[in-house]
């Protein structure tokens, strides 16, 4: 059932600079993850995406880019799926 999703994650993970990727549902439960991403952070990732939508009403959910010492994180939400890509420096 999840083969298609795993395949997409696999392809995205091959992109240079991507160190991890995680996909969550609207309840913050991890659907799939790869690389450095920890399935335990699925709740926080979904929450960040949901909270960002409150900041400004737009037709599309905003993309969120988080920069930190150990790398960067790109979060996007479409319909009920939130995806986060961990990027190494």
């Amino acid at each position, binding site marked *: 059932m999840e083969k298609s999703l795993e395949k997409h994650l696999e392809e995205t993970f091959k992109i240079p600079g991507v160190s991890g990727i995680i996909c969550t549902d609207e*309840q913050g439960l991890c659907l799939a993850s790869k690389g450095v991403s920890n399935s335990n952070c*699925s709740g926080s990732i979904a929450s960040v995406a949901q909270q960002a939508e409150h900041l400004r009403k737009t037709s599309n959910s905003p993309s969120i880019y988080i920069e930190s010492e150990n790398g960067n994180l790109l979060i996007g939400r479409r319909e009920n799926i939130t995806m986060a890509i961990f990027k190494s420096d």
Partner: protein
Amino acid sequence: MHNQDRAELKRSLFKFMSNVEGLDAIIVTDRDGVVMLKVAHESVPDQVTRHQFLSVFGSMSDQASKLGLGTNQRIISLYDNYQVVQINKQPLLVTMVGSSEANTGEILNLEKDLDMLFKDLSTVIQMT
């Protein structure tokens, strides 16, 4: 347990509960469903804070542990308007009740925060 310690623990529990939007109650019980600690918003249905409801998880967890997958750790129950997340932390059981739209992943993440609390309470239960 001293009243002061209990008040301190309740304050911590309340803080954890407030960190998750839509989470309405955190109840810590022993294996038989006897309430050790409880924080709850007024909006939470009465029955979920009672022994009759809370004690069911102990039996559910025992049965779930017989499915050949090892000891049951958590059970998540999703209803129309509510969700109930229950965690087996022998000898304690933790029941968290929230709205159906609350972030289940964040509720599950609270387990890490609650671990320190569990150590103290578990010692008290084992001594009695």
